Structures are given as C-alpha cells and as structure tokens.
C-alpha cells in the first residue's frame, strides 16, 4: 500500500500555506476493518492527510533541507464528521510559527465545503545525520525518494520550480 494520504497538491505558497486533496475509494483495504458495515476514512488518516500536506509545505519551503519531517504534537484536533468513499477531503495548512526544527501549523479538512477536521499541528524536521553523521547517506536517499514522490503529487509545481 502506498502510504500517501495526499493524492494531489493543488496549491503551495512557500513559507505560508498549502492546499491538497485526498479522495477516499472503497478499494482502500483498511476500509474492510474501518468499519465493516460503515466504511469511512479513519480519523487518524484525516490527521495524516493534514500532516502530510504540512510536511510537503515544509519540505518545499526549505528545499528538502531536512530529510525527516514527523508529527510531534497535535492539539485540539476535532473529527467533526465522517468522510465516506467517493468523497474528496480538501486539506489545507497554514504556517503559524517556525524555528530551526519545528513548525506550527493550523490545519483543516473539508468535504463539499463542510468542515470535517481541524487542528493545530507541530511538525519536527531534522536530519538523521544530526544524531549520527554516518547516516548522512540515508538522509540523501530519503530526500531522493521524497523528491520523486513530490513529482507525482505536484507535477506542475515541481516543473515551475525547475524552470526558476
């Protein structure tokens, strides 16, 4: 299974905000268990969609300076309603504050204009080499893999960045 909870990045403004989409399909195999009689996108996958959109914003803003971007804190994340197969969750995230290794964002998800999820996220960005210099090569590999993924999620963005 591809662990991408973002299907497409729609807009990205470096240092500011990102908008992306995640469409839910009945073929997603975890839906068999969540739930057998009422398949819906799990709340934590709504959170993961917001996290991944935020992570892409950070990576593009910093030009992949950090290979690792992880969700470190989440506050007041409300799961207002369910997202059913066939529907598209529009996620957006806006940077509220940053320092060298953490970024705080206000994130939101909606379907057909109705709010489904919202919350405040703190993402931690770092390199493996920060703790062990021998891992610098691994950082490079992670970056390469992620750049390829970005090419799939935001082809027009990557092309325009290249043209600059």
């Amino acid at each position, binding site marked *: 299974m591809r662990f991408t909870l973002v299907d497409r990045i729609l807009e990205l403004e470096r240092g500011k905000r990102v908008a992306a989409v995640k469409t839910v399909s009945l073929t997603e195999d975890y839906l068999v268990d969540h739930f057998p009689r009422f398949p819906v996108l799990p709340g934590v996958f709504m959170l993961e969609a917001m996290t991944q959109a935020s992570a892409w914003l950070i990576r593009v803003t910093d030009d992949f300076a950090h290979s690792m971007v992880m969700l470190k804190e989440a506050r007041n994340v*409300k799961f*207002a309603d369910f997202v059913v197969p066939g529907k598209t969750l529009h996620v957006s995230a806006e940077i509220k504050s940053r320092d060298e290794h953490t970024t705080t964002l206000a994130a939101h998800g909606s379907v057909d204009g109705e709010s489904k999820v919202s919350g405040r996220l703190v993402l931690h960005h770092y390199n493996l080499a920060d703790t062990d210099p021998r891992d610098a090569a691994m950082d490079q590999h992670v970056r390469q893999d992620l750049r390829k993924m970005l090419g799939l999620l935001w082809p027009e963005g990557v092309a325009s960045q290249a043209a600059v």
Partner: protein
Amino acid sequence: MQTQEEILSKVQEALVEALGVDDDEVTPDATLVGDLGAESIDFLDIVFRLEKAFSIKIPRDELFPEDILTNDEYVQDGRVNEAGVAKLAERMPFADLSKFKENPAVQDFANQLTVSDMCRYVENKLAA
C-alpha cells in the same frame, strides 16, 4: 467558597484548554460558539474539564436543554414560544436570555451562551 474571580479564572482555563484559544479571547461576554469557535464535540470536553475543576456534576440537559428545544409544545416553525422561553429560563436561571427572547430561533440557542453564563452556572452549582 470560591469568589467570582476564582470561578472566572478556572472557567477561562477550561475554555482555553478545550478550545485552543488564547487567554485574552475568553472575555466574560464572549459567546462559546460564535466568538470562541466551540463545536458540539467541544462541549463534552468543556463539561469534563468543569466537572473536574469544580468537583461538580453537570447533567447534559442543564446546559443543553434539547428536550425543550425539540418539544412541539414549546417550539413551532423553528421558533421557541413564550411557554418554551419560560421553561428555558426555569431550567437555566444562570443564562441571560434577553437577546434570545428578541429572536428565539432554536438554531441560535446554543450560539448565545457566554462565558459569563458558564460562570453563573458554576456559581449556582457550588452554592447548591
């Protein structure tokens, strides 16, 4: 016996924690829904925090009088009648219903609950 300032301070803390708003947004006149962005999920969080902070029990229908707001006897065409407003006043003596009386639309009821209303509610509970 807790003073009004102590009660306000604890209510403010509960709302800041539950709603993720800043301290200075939680003014006495701020409405929970309109000004502070409380949604229905948040009310459970708020209730739990207030119960813990003040060692009181908050039965749901004392703050959210759904039984009155969904009763045909008290509500017609989405508006609460005089008898209904009287019943609400009886159930919720802590709430300032003067604005609601001017335009008693059911869907607006939850929206007009303020921080002061919550403080008065707690005060009444502690005095009981």
